[in-house]
């Protein structure tokens, strides 16, 4: 069977669902961030697949690159916050971070 648009969309859909599952079931903050990365990758795969099979051009690639840049920024800030939370609460479980300041 030839690979078509639907194949890529199905892969992205499964990736998205597993990312949502990770975000909702993890208590570990780093695990939640990994789930967010999966969701962003699924969206990127859809951008590039639609670009190739429907639109034609590079606009989808440009959007995917913006998403990658912002995901890197989000990961840097998120992991710095995780380190600060660990320093304060000695734990990175999301429910245990229950105060804005000490």
């Amino acid at each position: 069977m030839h690979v078509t648009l639907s194949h890529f969309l199905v892969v992205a859909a499964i990736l998205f669902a597993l990312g949502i599952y990770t975000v909702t079931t993890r208590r570990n903050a780093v695990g939640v961030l990994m789930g967010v990365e999966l969701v962003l990758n699924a969206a990127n795969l859809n951008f590039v697949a639609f670009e190739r099979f429907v639109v034609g051009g590079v606009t989808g690639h440009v959007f995917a690159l913006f998403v990658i840049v912002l995901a890197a920024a989000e990961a840097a800030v998120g992991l710095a916050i995780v380190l600060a939370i660990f320093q304060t609460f000695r734990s990175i479980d999301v429910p245990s971070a229950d105060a804005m300041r000490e």
Partner: protein
Amino acid sequence: MPARPPNVFRRILGAALVAAFLAFIAAHVLLPADEATTNPQWSVQLSDLLFYVFAAMTIGGAGTVAFSHNIIHTALGLLGALLGVGCLYVFLSADFVAITQLLVYIGGVLVLILFAVMLTSKIGDVNVSNASIGRYGGFGLLTAIVPVLVFVAVRGPWAEKTPGPLAPTTALIGNEFLTKWLLPFELASLVLLATLVGAVVMARREIKAD
């Protein structure tokens, strides 16, 4: 659910490779070559089989991220998922995005995540993740999301057209960035600068707290 064995991802990858190899052999050796060319509906190409291998790698890695109890295995599963998505970009003629995925995600984000894992958990107990809304709620969510999205992906009336041959995209992307998307491009650099400053501020506060 018991903890997964450590080499489950390798097993998934190995099984996918074996299946792809067997299908390739079955298609090209057992089937007569002229029949495969006269009936293009059933001719299996190497690129299609490779697509299935990389899709299995992506979904296997994502499944490890979602279901593994061990945070280190989760990070390695994320490596497999990101690598698989990067390989799928190559199939979509997105060479620049694929290389960026490799450099930024695997070289940057994944290393950051591994650092965070090692800085925030003791080496003795790597088993630091447990369910928040529970596995049953999560599986309910999965069964709610996956069939709907797969149905839309397969049955949707996409205005699909035959894609052209694979071509380099770097020059086109550079032109787009510096003409049509110039303002968002510059704003992205501002965001990155603010991110760097913010991360440094938080890291300094962490050192002062000691």
